[in-house]
């Protein structure tokens, strides 16, 4: 979440229309949670300070387009017929109008705030992990100190406590995916809590990002499932009339196949988004009470700051727990798809 609270929210004349709230907290929170075409950092004296990002479009009318998002501000919000829609179905997206005046959306491949944050996060994570790996490659025997040693403990805690016991005997095949998943989610969660430039985007609180993560889990679980796993789905050991004339069990199993990654997607998305929304709500409490007298406003400010610090620590815990939960559930699903054929006959022979 970015620290950019717009400067228009400073106290307004008291006793004016009480209906006209000086700050629409809901709008402000939603604006900070959503993806954006530019990286807004602050508004100072009604001047926007932001990092312009490239907008890449393919429109049926005018072909491929590439321009900076700063062009919108320079040209009163409209450039080459494209503008950011204020209302309607495509609110907040780049649109153009067709011949009959309807808003249509071109194919939008813009490098948005979340996409840039995703790239920065991945890049930092790769650099960081390669740095640690190199320390081990150079001196494999010597015990490590400082950051490298701390990361060894962290990585091994995930590896030994989650991946090995939960996945079972095939863990070697899946450890790369599970460790990458854990550190990707954890790193991006923490980066989302940093309020200044490289962080601050709501990456793991964006449902498209969590959808991609859940989809890759779904594919890995189902593409590496064993024959027994698929037999359990399509021909389970239940009375035949539950399978052939009325395939109730098969429908239940197929629904279960979809709901597992769906729950993963919703869990990560809702947790991170709710955390950002709580912090933003507490921040906007300061600005809501700003014109309600000095005593109330200063006490609410102090109260908000204390609560924000508290919530921030909770969010750091949530960032870890959600990465952990996503990884452990992926491991459980993988374990569930690696069903081994029953070995009852063999054990009978041996006894």
């Amino acid at each position, binding site marked *: 979440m970015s620290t950019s609270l717009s400067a228009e929210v400073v106290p307004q004349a008291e006793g004016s229309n009480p209906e006209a709230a000086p700050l629409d907290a809901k709008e402000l929170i939603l604006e900070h949670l959503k993806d954006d075409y530019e990286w807004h950092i602050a508004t100072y004296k009604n001047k926007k300070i932001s990092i312009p990002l490239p907008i890449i479009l393919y429109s049926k009318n005018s072909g491929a387009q590439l321009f900076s998002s700063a062009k919108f501000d320079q040209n009163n919000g409209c450039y080459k017929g494209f503008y950011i829609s204020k209302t309607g179905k495509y609110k907040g997206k780049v649109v153009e109008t067709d011949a009959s005046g309807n808003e249509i959306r071109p194919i939008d491949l813009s490098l948005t705030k979340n996409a840039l944050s995703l790239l920065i996060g991945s890049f930092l994570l790769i650099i960081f992990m390669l740095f640690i790996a190199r320390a081990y490659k150079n001196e494999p025997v010597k015990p490590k100190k400082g950051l490298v040693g701390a990361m060894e403990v962290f990585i091994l805690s995930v590896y030994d*406590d*989650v991946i090995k*016991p*939960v996945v079972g005997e095939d863990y070697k095949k899946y450890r790369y995916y599970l460790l990458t998943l854990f550190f990707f989610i954890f790193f991006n969660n923490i980066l989302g809590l940093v309020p200044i430039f490289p962080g601050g985007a709501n990456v793991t609180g964006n449902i498209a990002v969590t959808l991609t993560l859940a989809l890759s889990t779904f594919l890995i679980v189902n593409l590496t499932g064993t024959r027994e796993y698929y037999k359990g789905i399509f021909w389970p050991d239940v009375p035949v009339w539950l399978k052939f004339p009325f395939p109730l069990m098969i429908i239940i199993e197929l629904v279960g196949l979809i709901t597992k990654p769906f*729950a993963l997607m*919703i*869990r990560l998305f*809702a*947790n991170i988004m*709710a955390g950002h929304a709580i912090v933003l709500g507490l921040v906007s409490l300061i600005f809501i009470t700003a014109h309600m007298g000095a005593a109330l406003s200063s006490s609410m400010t102090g109260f908000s700051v204390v609560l924000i610090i508290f919530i921030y620590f909770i969010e750091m815990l949530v960032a870890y*727990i959600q990465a*952990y*939960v996503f990884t*452990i*559930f992926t491991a*459980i699903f993988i374990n569930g798809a690696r069903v081994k054929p029953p070995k009852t006959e063999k054990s009978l022979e041996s006894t």
Partner: protein
Amino acid sequence: MLLSILLQVATDIGILGKALTVAITVIAAGFGISKIGSSAMEGIARQPEAGGDIRISMIIAAALIEGVALFAIVVAGFIL
């Protein structure tokens, strides 16, 4: 007169429904997670050497409950 008041209330009743959904969900999820937490603590106190396994199972069960609660909140927030 009465009808107009009722109509005005009817537009707000959706918000009331959302608030109630979220409130009941949060109470239920809090109850469920508190039961898990108390049982896990009892279990760890009785058998400290099983603490690691109990902790993993506790987090899994708590996450499942939390998932259901978040479903309800997402439904209340975006669909209702």
